[in-house]
């Protein structure tokens, strides 16, 4: 950002909103690239710039890389190759020396905050200390969604207008000095006026605002997000970044007046012209360069085996045999392992992966619900709503959350009566956890016995401006696109399962992040059920037949939901199944159950508090308890360890053990020679999987500033966010308990297709293209005919020869899994 002489407030506010954390309120938590603001630069340049300006740590500790190197987890040949790729060959030993032995040194001091620190230097006043407490109190009370028993009195107005009303009618005030009060009540006061008082120099306004807002990025970011997406609050608040900053400036002036009386002036006199600007150009730095080389060596040490594995021909896969059933899962990395077990216990089945909203973007309106929930990827704006009726789902109450316990007499009576009941409840929940009203269960998202308005009766029939249900055309189109994109257009088995996923947990403020990301942080049950109903629709099938997709009459679709925490499944609308299919389903259920138990066992190796050498059923019971245990900060590992996204036919990767680290998207290049569906897939995969991956990356390498820190001391603020204790700023990013076992690797996306087609496809969409071109995700293309690998670098594909000699086969995977809790390399399993 070049520093402007004049000041454009609107532009500055946009810019600020762009750089601030973009995390929505907890209920709408969706993974995204934490440093999205820097995405116009290439990855390493971007993170260096972010680090130099905002003080983020953007790589792992150098000691950590060295430790991995000495454990051979960073391959030394790969390290040499990485250095060779970036440095002239004669400098190899110089750099290697630097990487291995350079004494640990500090990163440069961040530039943000320098300007505002002049207050402390010249007036010996700590503005943060004076201002933050009241600022946070006010904004938190104003935005509160239901914790306070006595809410902000004039919350329907904007933040400033509301505060005006409050201050006007109160004998007590947040503002102590007449100057601040006059400025505040004068309707003609502009933010520029306040900045002139505080900063003086117009060309430093912007920098000052960055300093000010990045002292509490959590709250500022929240305000900026709520301004952009007001729908994220159920109880609406017309808040804006402008108002928030205005308030902070008023409070600053008040504090300065209070402390310094008339003896203070704007900062202008203390800012020499050569004073550092923020967000200027970055220079080359050996310190960052060494980190960069280490990081790439770490990544390629893993990528290399994956590529080798994908090139290794699979064993005997008899494609001729008729499959017993087909099952569509979400692309989610958590489905990577359950699919492996489903295939293992039903070897004649086929599984597919696709984004878990099953190509059906809509809002869901549960019966009795006062609001709609979006159940498709966050950036999509659906035009449809599915309404639920005849639901019998009721939610239980828990008196411990009641406001009466907080009153004087109510509290007096309750603590002497219910208090003792609490003791018993607590004891019970510690020694024998069970479902409680406090928990979040994926199976509560929808009543399986309710009716859904899948088919549109009348396109003019609207609900809040959205069409209720889908027309025949819409259903056919989306079903066609779904089936074609995953390559399932023939050889339908008698049963085709469509299985969404969700999660269950208790005492988990980030619960929305555990559900299906493709459904905006909700369980995928409604989508799966609607997709299955569409698949079973006669009229839809007739139309599909005309488009070349012939679904036999004997084939039936079944919707279902996989709870990834408890490893349980639920299936919907089974009454429509024909008798023969009913029988088959019963059979499949048994292998699903076994698969679920084994999946739980595999997951348990990462839960160090469960003995995973036990019998699968036993482990499964313990795993189920985690979801209901108040004291379990890690009900499941969610996306931790994710590192791959593999786009291609299942046949080309079914023989590989990928340790639950891969997003698997089914795709058959043979029916999509032009890459039409591939574009659709990449358009979703790059931002969604890339977003998840990068959020994990940054939350891991800097859990203090880019992550939310340990969740154990978190305090819930206004139902929208968490902070440490009472006085802290809102914490964004992922808590440490979500990333403990994660290795910060950028995601590698592999595509089974011809490189020239892939290149054409990614170039077709500029937004998607920058993800690859700027190196935020790595792209490798595997040639379908000769399995040659091509890696995408800046503007084209280059062929890549893996250094890994061969991929080891593993005979007893179960024993191996039970024996270690570490990340495992790629293995051949078939």
């Amino acid at each position, binding site marked *: 950002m070049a520093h402007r002489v004049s000041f454009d407030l609107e532009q500055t506010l946009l810019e600020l909103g762009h750089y601030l954390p973009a995390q929505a309120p907890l209920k709408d938590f969706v993974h995204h690239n934490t440093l999205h603001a820097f995405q116009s630069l290439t990855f390493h340049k971007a993170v260096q710039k972010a680090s130099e300006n905002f003080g983020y740590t953007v790589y792992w500790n150098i000691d950590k890389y060295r430790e991995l190197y000495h454990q051979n987890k960073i391959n030394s040949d790969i390290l040499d190759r990485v250095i060779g790729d970036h440095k002239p060959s004669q400098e190899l030993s110089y750099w290697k020396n630097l990487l291995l032995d350079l004494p640990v040194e500090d990163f440069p001091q961040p530039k943000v905050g320098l300007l505002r620190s002049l207050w402390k230097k010249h007036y010996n006043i700590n503005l943060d200390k004076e201002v933050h407490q009241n600022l946070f109190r006010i904004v938190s*009370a104003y935005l509160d969604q239901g914790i306070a028993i006595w809410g902000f009195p004039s919350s329907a107005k904007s933040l400033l207008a509301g505060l005006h009303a409050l201050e006007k*009618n109160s004998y007590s005030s947040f503002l102590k000095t007449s100057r601040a009060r006059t400025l505040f009540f004068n309707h003609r006061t502009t933010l520029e006026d306040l900045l002139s008082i505080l900063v003086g120099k117009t060309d430093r306004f912007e920098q000052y605002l960055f300093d000010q807002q990045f002292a*509490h990025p959590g709250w500022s970011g929240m305000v900026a997000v709520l301004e952009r997406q007001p729908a994220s609050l159920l109880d609406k608040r017309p808040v804006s970044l402008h108002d928030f900053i205005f308030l902070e400036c008023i409070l600053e002036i008040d504090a300065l007046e209070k402390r310094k009386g008339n003896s203070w002036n704007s900062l202008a006199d203390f800012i020499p012209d050569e004073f550092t600007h923020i967000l200027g150009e970055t220079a080359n730095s050996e310190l960052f360069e060494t980190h960069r080389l280490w990081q790439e060596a770490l990544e390629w040490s893993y990528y290399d085996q994956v590529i080798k594995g994908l090139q290794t021909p699979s064993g005997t896969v008899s494609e001729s045999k008729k499959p017993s059933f087909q099952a569509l899962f979400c692309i989610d990395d958590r489905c990577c392992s359950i699919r492996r077990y489903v295939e293992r216990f039903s070897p004649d089945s086929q599984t597919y992966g696709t984004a878990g909203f099953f190509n059906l973007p809509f809002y869901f309106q549960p019966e009795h619900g006062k609001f709609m929930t979006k159940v498709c990827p966050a950036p999509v704006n659906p035009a449809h709503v599915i309404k639920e009726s005849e639901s019998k789902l009721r939610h239980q109450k828990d008196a411990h959350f009641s406001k009466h316990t907080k009153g004087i007499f109510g*509290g007096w009576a309750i603590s002497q009566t219910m208090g003792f009941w609490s003791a018993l409840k*607590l004891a019970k929940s510690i020694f024998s956890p069970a479902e409680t009203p406090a928990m979040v269960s994926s199976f509560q998202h929808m009543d399986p016995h309710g009716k859904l308005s899948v088919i549109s009766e009348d396109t003019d029939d609207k609900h809040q401006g959205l069409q209720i249900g889908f027309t025949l055309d819409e259903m056919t189109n989306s079903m066609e696109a779904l089936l074609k994109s995953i390559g399932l257009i023939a050889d339908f088995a008698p049963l085709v399962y469509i299985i969404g996923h969700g999660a269950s947990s208790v005492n988990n403020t980030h619960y929305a992040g555990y559900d299906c990301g493709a459904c905006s942080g909700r369980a995928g049950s409604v989508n799966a059920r609607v997709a299955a109903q569409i698949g079973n629709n006669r009229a839809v099938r007739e139309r599909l037949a005309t488009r070349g997709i012939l679904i036999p009459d004997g084939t039936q679709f079944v919707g279902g939901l996989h709870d990834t925490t408890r490893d349980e499944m639920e299936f919907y609308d089974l009454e429509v199944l024909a008798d023969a299919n009913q029988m088959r389903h019963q059979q499949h259920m048994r292998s699903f159950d076994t698969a679920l138990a084994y999946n739980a066992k595999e997951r348990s190796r990462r839960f160090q508090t469960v003995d995973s050498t036990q019998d699968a059923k036993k482990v499964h019971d313990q795993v189920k308890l985690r979801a209901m245990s108040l004291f*379990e900060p890690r009900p499941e590992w969610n996306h931790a360890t994710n590192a791959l996204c593999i786009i291609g036919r299942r046949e080309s990767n079914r023989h590989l053990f990928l340790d639950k680290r891969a997003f698997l998207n089914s795709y058959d290049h043979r029916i999509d020679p032009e890459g039409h569906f591939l574009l659709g897939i990449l358009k979703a995969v790059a931002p969604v999987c890339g977003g998840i991956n990068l959020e994990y990356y940054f939350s891991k390498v800097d859990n*203090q500033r880019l992550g939310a820190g340990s969740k154990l*001391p978190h305090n819930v603020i206004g139902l929208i966010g968490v902070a440490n204790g*009472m006085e802290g700023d809102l914490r964004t990013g992922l808590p440490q308990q979500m990333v403990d076992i994660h290795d910060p690797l950028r995601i590698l996306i592999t595509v089974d297709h011809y490189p020239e087609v892939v290149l054409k496809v990614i170039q077709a969409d500029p937004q998607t293209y920058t993800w690859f071109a700027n190196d935020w995700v790595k792209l490798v293309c595997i040639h379908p005919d000769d399995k040659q690998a091509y890696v995408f670098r800046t503007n084209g594909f280059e062929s890549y020869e893996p250094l890994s000699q061969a991929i080891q086969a593993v005979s007893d995977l179960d024993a191996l899994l039970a024996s270690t809790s570490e990340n495992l390399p790629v293995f051949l399993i078939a």
Partner: protein
Amino acid sequence: MIHQLIISAFVLVPLFGFVISLFLPKHWESGFSAVAFGMISIQLIFLTGYVIYWLFSGSTPVNIAEMELYNDGIYRFLLDFYFDTITAVYLWVGTFITFLITRYSRFYMHLEAGYKRFFNTLLFFYLAYSLTVLAGNFETLFLGWEMLGISSFLLIAFYRERYLPVRNALKVFSIYRIGDIGIILAMWASHHLWHENITFIKLLDGPLVATQLATHGGIGLFIGICLLVAAAAKSAQLPFSSWLPRAMEGPTPSSAIFYGSLSVHFGVFLLLRTYPFWEHEPTVRVMIGLLGLATALIAYPIARVQSTIKTQIAYASIAQIGIMFIEVALGLETLVLIHFAGNAFLRTYQLLVSPSVVAYLIRDTFYNFRSRKPSIEDTFPKKLAYSLYVLSLKEWNLDHFFNAWVFGPVKQLGRKLQFISMNYLLLILLPVYVIGIVVYFHQTWLPSSIISSIPTLLGFLGMLLVFRAFSERTSPALALALVVSNHFWTALAVSFNETFDYLQTEIYISGVIVTGAIGFWCLRYLRKKERQHVDLSQYHGHVYEYPKLALVYFLVTLGIMGFPITPTFIGVDLLFSHIHEDQYFLAAFLAISYVFGGIALIRIYVRLFLGPHIKNYHATALKTS
């Protein structure tokens, strides 16, 4: 005998568990939980059994003279245990909650970097809790009381790499210490009232207490007020209330056990325990009742406007404790005990499930939405309602109260004394001290009227040195030297007061000398290593690179402040016994020095070793997080 064995075991078992936990290897999670959970289970079983046995055998209070730590015929320092209904209820409730929390934390704390530290602190807390509850005299109670303060500091500052927990830990510790002035003065006055270190069981003798108090007009009132101050501080009553929500910086279970349930009810405990002292002082009873009422009335609206779950629970709990104060004042012991147990259980559970509030209330809103819940205040006149709202949101400015009225003025006073430097200390004050010693041996040189005013004068001087240390912003060594030197001035001051055995002065000074010397060595070492980063103007977080040094220095800090790890602890008590009944000023100066000395010492430790690390080659926290 059976009583003696069992009751002693209630302290020894936790002590044993705590000591073992110190020696277990750092990453052996199941080891810690086994020790903690095993210890507490044994305790719970035996306690339950004993309480039943005790109830059936008549439930008469039991007093156990456990161990004599010092006795010179006139003064006796006795470790004394006591078991009555209050003890039974507090000990059982505390043990049961700790039992649940240890189990809970076994999984909750999994993989946390401070796993060992957490369990060490938890066990230390439980030891302090048991000791305080079982205390049979003031000395034993004060021992437990001080340990509670330290364990509280450690739990709040559990996330020591961040700024806010560390700052708030210091804040809470400081407020606790202010409350301690009350208890020190109450002990001193009580000693003069009874001419011995009275055990609580003797206070049950109503007629004796009544006659004794009647012959010492005013002293009963004085003790009552001192105890009320101590109780109000510990139980977050006015004007101390704002520390409680700020203490919720540690992992949720530690907040639950400490600030939700157990520690915060100690003010109530102190009042129940000392009931015979002020039972017949209507003024004290009225004051306790009014304080409770005022607290309830102010904390309640504050709780109502809180938009964060933990602060809401904290203020709701404060309001309930206010009511307990009223109940105590009315003499309704049984009701108080029921109320305490219920409130402790309720708040523990509410805090533990507090993260669930998001999912629960969001779902509730989703299905039963009403824009802006109506509240009772909507019926008030607007001006009144809005004023009350703003005041409550500002917590009635309670958070600024102590800064404005206590710490601020002390700091300002200290700044006025900037001229006292290390050189000044050595070149001017040291010679003066030597002259003081010479005068002490030749007291006939001076007229007796001057001699009699010397103790107060010296006490005052020592206090000023402590204030100077408290406000020092640059040199940790100077601050340390000032606090250490205060102990010498104190010793000299009391020596002028009356003639007593040198041994007592030696007991007092010995601990200070040894720990002080180690302290200076630590600071020198750190200075040699980190030339740039050893001043008191900011937090340095050196514990990241020097965890062992930090531990040693922390122990040093405790030693110098008279914590029961050196003989100084007994020395303090001994010295106070030589302050005459009419020397209120001297007693006050010494008590204030003692308290502020402790704060100044902890402040040095905090600024050097805790907070965000000054170096950034690894991820460090933002100050506001």
